[in-house]
């Protein structure tokens, strides 16, 4: 009986948790967008992974939120770190310490659009 209650409780939507997860997504996204240093990006990877795990767990429990959010952000972070890897060192040596503009254009807008969608949906922004 108690297990059944727990299962039901675990499956209900939790707007507070959704809002917290989306706000953290915004924080992480803004940080990733602003940061040019690979070693700095890697510093938030554990925090990012913990957030991602709870996002997937919540989505699986409730079928709430947008399942693509974590995937997009994760992919975006991986692409961004790849752009900082040795094969792109020439760009860095040439003084281009910023991530490639094409990358920003192609990949940066996708997670931002999803976050914006969720922020509006949850009433975080109008």
């Amino acid at each position, binding site marked *: 009986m108690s297990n059944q209650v*727990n299962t039901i*409780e*675990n499956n209900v939507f*939790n707007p*507070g*948790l959704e*809002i*917290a997860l989306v*706000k*953290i997504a*915004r*924080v*992480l996204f*803004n*940080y990733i*967008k*602003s*940061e040019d*240093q690979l070693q*700095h990006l890697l*510093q*938030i990877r*554990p*925090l990012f*992974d*913990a*957030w991602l*795990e*709870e996002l997937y*767990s*919540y989505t699986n429990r409730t079928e709430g939120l947008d399942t693509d959010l974590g995937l997009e952000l994760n992919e975006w972070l991986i692409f961004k770190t790849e752009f900082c890897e040795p094969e792109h060192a020439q760009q860095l040596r040439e003084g281009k310490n910023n991530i490639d503009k094409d990358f920003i254009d192609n990949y940066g807008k996708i997670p931002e659009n999803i976050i914006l969608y969720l*922020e509006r949906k949850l009433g*975080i*922004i109008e």
Partner: protein
Amino acid sequence: MSENNDSPQIEPANYSFEVALVRTARALFDYVELENNPEAIKKIFPILASLEKASNDYVNLTNSLHPDLGLELREWATLKSEFLSPEHSINKSPQSKNIDRDFIDHYGDSADRIIKYLENSLGLEPKTTADTNDDLHNIPKPPSLWEPSEAEPPYTGVIAGTDHVVSFKTGGLNYNHTLIADGDLSNDNDTFNGKGGDAGHDHFGSKY
């Protein structure tokens, strides 16, 4: 003279990272404060633990930020869930969905005060819901006066509430802070000042 290679290499402070950590802390704190269900609170423990580790790692690398931030948050969430466990008041008064008031006063103020201190020191605006939401969309530029914290930072902040003596542990050193308030919660001009060299480990009754 040979260089001392035993000294840990201190990395330069990273303002954007500090902002990200503090904003994450604020989001988690707001959630813990809002949430009355211990099972729901426990869901974010892995994120809290990761925040704690990221904060501590960063502090160890830079001597910046406040090393107790992650500790405070995790302790706060843990204690909050304990207050909701069967032996505590919510079970005695099932009609009440509120956390025990003493708990809020003693532990909630502590975590909130540290986050506010960090928000102030990083130049982030004091938070209302609207401020927070606007702020989330702006990546701040470092304030002109922002510099990495020194070994013994001037802990000056704004508090409201009753008087407290709080011990902070910073960069391996312990600090005692006398938090002076006049009891008027609407008065946000109270200040607290820290002084170094204390060996106290009492942390609102707990030890670390």
